[in-house]
């Protein structure tokens, strides 16, 4: 997009705010609308915008394919691992109430809150990884016909 110079400048201005807004949705989702899925998609949209304007190679310098391949399973592992921690702490799978007493009272307000935070984090990481990966895969192939 060399010839769209104004578009490049405006995108540079806008991308940080999109990423910041993704983090806001991720970590504020307990209080307002939004949550992990939406945050992941917004984060991916920021990276996709970067890739659209500055080219796929530039985007892959920011978030490499290797990093994506780590991100996608990591989110699912965080989700499942939260459940396993609940099991180890003596509760049921994904029953966050048992996390109450293991983390100190000053640090975490409530076990449920901590569990939901971790789970949403896992969802967000996986979703953003998947969306960026699908964009990379579709964009990397040249038009065949």
């Amino acid at each position, binding site marked *: 997009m060399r010839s769209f110079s104004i578009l490049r400048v405006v995108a540079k201005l806008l991308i940080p705010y999109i990423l910041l807004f993704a983090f806001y*949705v991720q970590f504020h*989702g*307990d*209080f*307002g*609308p*939004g*949550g*992990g899925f*939406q945050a992941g*998609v*917004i984060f*991916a*949209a920021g990276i*996709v915008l970067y890739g*659209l304007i500055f080219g796929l*190679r530039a985007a*892959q*310098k920011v978030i*490499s*394919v*290797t990093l994506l391949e780590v991100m*996608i*399973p990591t*989110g*699912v592992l965080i*989700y*499942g691992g939260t*459940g396993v921690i609940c099991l180890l702490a003596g509760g049921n*799978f*994904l029953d*966050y*109430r048992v996390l109450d007493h293991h983390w100190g009272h000053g640090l975490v*307000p*409530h076990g*449920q*809150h901590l*569990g*939901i935070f971790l*789970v*949403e984090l*896992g*969802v967000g990481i*996986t*979703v953003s*990884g*998947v*969306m960026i*990966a*699908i*964009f*990379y*895969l*579709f*964009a*990397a*192939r040249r*038009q*065949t*016909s």
Partner: protein
Amino acid sequence: MTESTQFIVIPLLGLLAATALTVARMRDLWAAVMLSGIYSFLGACWMMVLDAPDVAFTEAAVGAGISTVLMLATLSHTSRTAKSRPRISWPALIVVIVTGSVLAYGTLDMPHYGDPDAPIHRFPSPTYIEKTEHDVHDMPNVVTVVLASYRGYDTLGETTVIFTAAVAVTLLMRIRRPEVTAS
């Protein structure tokens, strides 16, 4: 949804139907992608009017941002126009009309719109709202609590579905060229 937003629902639904019909009649797939973007804008407006901001949020993030990009990326690998004008197939039309009228007949038994005595307002929602107040003190957004805590298994399954989708797309679309697997 309040009394004051009631009057805006009908025009929004009319616009949604008009957009859907236009997309169905469109032969140019590129224009269809743009119109489906408009459809998602309208859908988010409608959900917003119905007081469901979380769903509207998802629609905003997915429909406006990502899905346009992905559909255009798909178009770049296929053709830009639909192949041929489909002929009307009479058996299919009859099946569609019969099914549609049966479904429309079924809606007559449903409780009225916004009826406080409707089953969904009686059983699950009040219990969840009361339980959230008791179980999780500091989370005002009940939707997040229901998704992540009460229905945690569901959401785990959904996350796994997304993971599986990524694996499937990677297996189908990956090409082994050094410029793509940026190391």
